[in-house]
């Protein structure tokens, strides 16, 4: 049972800088990086595998990336997402029948070689469709804030699981500009201004095959100058790391990217490429002469995905957190006395809020129960009434029946009496006939009297 030994390499001289701090047992250790002194490091230690260890851990854990697509209806947002990530994300196009701007978010699990990515694409449905667009940006800002809030809540929990938390904060916002060829719409300016402090904005010109090359250059310049003059901070690709500084700064000058999206393939030469076919020619999506799609993909995914995530966390989220906490009345005063009032007051407020919610819930439940009882009582009353009515009617019916019976009985009695009298009269008649004719008159009289 031997652990695999990793190879050792021959030594090389490395510069060692160090400082020494001594403290008694009651002091806290200070980290100081100043006061360098060069001492050679003899031999291979092996911590150069640290980046590998870190990367492996991340691979095991998986990555998460959230893109928000903002743009008017019909600018090809869904198609562009499909093209970027090479998959058909949605089955059917979204229904555009809601009154306001709604945000639809879908999460997908993608895998490429050993990297698992949890991609969330958020679409703005109905953006720019309203007659009055003053409040269009509001639902977008609310959505972004809600994701920050969810993360903040998780971070402030006492028992938290940040390690396995699914981060839904928006890492990149692709702003789709309509290819008018003139300038930005005021809706675009207003929306981007509201979003630039909350999310990394990457403006792109959608459906750019509608613009000619010369118009495109002018359009880009116009857009950039408008953004600058209105103070909109769009995301700049980072230029501080030498390995990517060059490519990033070149790309920065190509913003906004003019893209074309397509999931249909056309045969060009002997290859099948993604393209849009027109009677007058074919626009190839991945041809850099035709559009900037390749640049967008390069920047968004292949070069700066990690930086986008980092900026979201260290800039936008921190700003949100700071504002939120200051709004709630916390300050970083003395480090000793007030640090936890932040945490626990936040929790207390949350608990208070939850308590209120629960109380309201209870109230509603009580009210509901009350109403049910009342209704029940009413129904019971009605039932009783019905029963009573039924009883009454039954009684009436029985009374009637009895009366009828009585009448019938009396009728029967009369009938019997009549029969008796008839038989008696017949008997008498017979007797009278036998007695002679003198009594005929009497009989006639009797007969007359009798009937």
């Amino acid at each position, binding site marked *: *049972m*031997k*652990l695999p030994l*990793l*190879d050792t390499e021959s*030594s090389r001289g*490395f510069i060692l800088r*160090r*400082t*020494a*701090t*001594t*403290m*008694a*047992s009651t002091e*806290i*250790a200070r*980290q100081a*990086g100043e006061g*360098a002194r060069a*001492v050679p*490091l003899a031999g291979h*230690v*092996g*911590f150069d*595998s640290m*980046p*590998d*260890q*870190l*990367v*492996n*851990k*991340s*691979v095991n854990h998986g990555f998460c990336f959230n893109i928000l697509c903002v743009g008017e209806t019909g600018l090809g947002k869904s198609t562009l997402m499909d093209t970027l990530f090479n998959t058909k994300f949605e089955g059917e196009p979204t229904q555009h029948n809601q009154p306001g701007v709604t945000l639809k978010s879908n999460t997908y699990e993608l895998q*490429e*070689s050993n*990297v698992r*990515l949890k991609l969330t694409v958020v679409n703005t449905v109905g953006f720019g469709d309203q007659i009055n667009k003053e409040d269009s940006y509001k639902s977008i800002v609310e959505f972004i804030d809600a994701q920050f809030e969810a993360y903040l809540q998780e971070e402030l929990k*006492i028992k938290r699981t940040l390690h396995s938390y699914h981060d839904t904060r928006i890492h990149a916002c692709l702003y789709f500009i309509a290819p008018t060829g003139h300038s930005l719409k005021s809706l675009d300016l207003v929306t981007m201004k509201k979003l630039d402090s909350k999310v990394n904005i990457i403006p792109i010109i959608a459906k750019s095959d509608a613009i000619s090359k010369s118009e495109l250059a002018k359009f880009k310049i116009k857009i950039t100058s408008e953004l600058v003059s209105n103070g909109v901070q769009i995301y700049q690709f980072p230029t501080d790391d030498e*390995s990517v500084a060059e490519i990033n700064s070149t790309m920065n000058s190509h913003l906004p990217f003019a893209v074309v999206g397509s999931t249909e393939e056309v045969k060009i030469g002997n290859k099948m490429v993604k393209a849009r076919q027109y009677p007058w020619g074919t626009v190839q999506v991945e041809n850099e002469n035709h559009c900037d799609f390749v640049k967008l*993909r390069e920047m968004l*995914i292949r070069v700066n*995905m*990690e930086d986008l995530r*980092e900026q979201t966390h260290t800039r936008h989220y921190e700003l949100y*957190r700071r504002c939120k*906490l200051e709004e709630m009345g*916390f300050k*970083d005063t*003395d*480090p*000793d*006395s007030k*640090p*936890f*009032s932040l*945490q*626990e007051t936040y*929790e207390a407020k949350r608990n208070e809020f939850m308590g209120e919610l629960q109380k309201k819930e209870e109230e509603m439940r009580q009210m509901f129960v009350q109403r049910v009882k009342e209704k029940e009582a009413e129904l019971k009353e009605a039932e009783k009434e019905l029963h009573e009515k039924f009883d009454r009617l039954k009684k009436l019916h029985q009374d009637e029946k009895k009366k009828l019976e009585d009448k019938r009985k009396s009728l029967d009695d009369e009938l019997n009496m009549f029969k008796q009298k008839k038989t008696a009269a017949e008997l008498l008649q017979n007797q009278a006939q036998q007695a002679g004719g003198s009594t005929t008159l009497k009989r006639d009289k009797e007969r007359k009297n009798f009937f």
Partner: protein
Amino acid sequence: MSESAKPHHPIPQAKGEKSHGNDFSYVGIDAILEQMRRKAMKQGFELNIMVVGQSGLGKSTLMNTLFKSKVSRKSAQPNPEERIPKTIEIKSISHDIEEKGVRMKLTVIDTPGFGDQINNENCWQPIMKFINDQYETYLQEEININRKKRIPDSRVHCCIYFIPATGHCLRPLDVEFMRRLSKVVNIVPVIAKADTLTLEERDFFKQTIREELRANGIDVYPQKEFDEDAEDRIINDKIREMIPFAVVGSDQEYQVNGKKILGRKTKWGTIEVENIAHCEFAYLRDLLIRTHMQNIKDITGSIHYETYRVRRLNESNEQQQQQPRIVQANGVAAQHEALTHEM
């Protein structure tokens, strides 16, 4: 966790049928690995190791051997005096070292005076307090409204505990210390100056130590409950069957078979430090530095620190509820002091 010693840059063409650029089924998601690597190289890494053990067990030498340079406190002082301090001191020394473009800020925290007094009761307290103080500092920074982009990490990632090579069993001091500290920090126990034990004695000693650790419920690194998946468990089980590592330290080089190697030269032979037939230093080094360094830091950050944070926030809640709103400047700190000494 399988990695190679040389940094490996993932080239898209190497992965199966995907080729960069021309193949339109390749999106480029795996380029994020390269981006992460770049970011990590730029930021550099931090590692804080604490060494605990009686004086004379070779702590400083082992640190020097591990990092192949003079990182111990003795080397930092111009005229080192060999005196045993009256109380336990905590000495922390930071170095910036670099290897193949990877920069690391290494902090070695030494504890001279531990276990050296006649009455060693509560000798773990200053150490516990130090460790908790680091957690406290980190927590304070994390709670700030205006906080730094990267919170400086001074938390102790790993504590190497030196067990003298008696050959019998753990001493009560060892058990007490490890029992308390294994709850707040990753402990890696090592048998110091293991060149005084024969191989059989060594195996017997190790077995006894493992049984005693198990009997006392002491969880040393790598802890069984933090194994992530089956693969991890297999690797870590192998390690768990080898701890504590029997190490020998040396910062002097000798010629053996034409090669210059680190070792200890005696009349009866030369002990090669990096020879696994002689001692287990190489395993310790591999564990700490080459394979499990990230994991050690992760466990410190996501488990030990979180445990501390939960405790701290809960107690602060109760405290706030009991006391009136006006909290004195040292109200919270005083409570905190009381807590750390209870362990």
